[in-house]
């Protein structure tokens, strides 16, 4: 039995400790927002936060998240999360959408550390999130827009 906190709720799961966190989220907890892309920490689609840091959930055994706070796209309630959501809708960022939860979870880390990220900051943060539909230009625009929304300086 492994206890962890997911999106503010304490959960106990009965799985092999080596099970990747991704599968616990999707299969045991039915949180389908986090996606499987590569299973090898190469694409970023499975990105979640563990104790506030970005983590590739496909390579993190659930035992390593025991007792920690896990946040998925469903629980991204911090203010920058709302700004990202609004910006993503405004700029109509997703194409197929498959990579987008991972993109937003990574972008949330950036906005927490940089109120006004530069293009170079965005490249440094987002270089590990692959989009097979190549929505990169809109992602960049939406991060700038979300940062402005979070600063309260844009309408």
């Amino acid at each position: 039995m492994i206890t962890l906190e997911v999106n503010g709720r304490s959960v106990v799961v009965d799985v092999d400790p080596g099970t990747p966190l991704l599968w616990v989220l999707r299969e045991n907890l039915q949180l389908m927002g986090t996606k499987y892309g590569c299973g090898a920490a190469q694409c970023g689609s499975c990105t979640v936060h563990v104790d506030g840091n970005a983590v590739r959930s496909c390579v993190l055994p659930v035992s390593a998240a025991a007792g920690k706070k896990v946040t998925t796209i469903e629980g991204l309630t911090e203010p920058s999360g709302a700004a990202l959501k609004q910006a993503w809708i405004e700029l109509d960022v997703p194409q197929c959408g498959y990579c987008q939860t991972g993109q937003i979870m990574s972008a949330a880390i950036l906005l927490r550390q940089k109120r006004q990220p530069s293009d170079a900051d965005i490249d440094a943060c987002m270089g590990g999130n692959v989009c097979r539909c190549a929505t990169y230009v809109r992602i960049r625009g939406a991060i700038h827009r979300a940062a402005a929304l979070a600063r309260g300086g844009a309408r």
Partner: protein
Amino acid sequence: MRRTLDRRVLLVASLAAAFALAQCRAAGPDPAAQARSAAAWATVYEVLQHPRCVNCHPAGDVPLVGEHREVHPQNVQSGGNGMGLFAMACPTCHRDENTPGRHMPPGAPRWHMPPRNTPLVFEGRGARELARQLADPSQNGNLSPQQLLEHVKSDPLVLWGWNPGEGRAPVPVPHRTFVAAFQDWVEGGCRVPE
């Protein structure tokens, strides 16, 4: 009374002189130890130039990967503190241990690069140049020779070079041989080879 005092002064002075001589001897290794030190550097240098070591001691701000020292994919950068940047911090993918399987992220506790202010570059450094750099606290992260020895003996990131996970070649020189050579290098005064 006066003679007793003189005797005491003499005693203290001769003790101090003996102590200073001992210090001097300890500070200056004998020529044979110095020769061993210079000779041992070849083994140390061979290890430090292996991709398992160089890849996280690159000349630039970006770690390298693989046997051919390619730039780390995904636009990974060291960040000022050597821990990566934003959502691309090292522990995003690298855990305390290797992830099983080929092409999976390697791992060891506190996976990181040297910070930018003490970059500890191994890539492209010649043997003499690297010996000089490693012996100089202003260029080696402020470490004494003893601390350097401890680092190569027991730091999990160093030990990882001999247990790098599937699909990566370990350092071919045995760790024991490396530590013995490093010890010779340190004990003989961190000599820069001719």
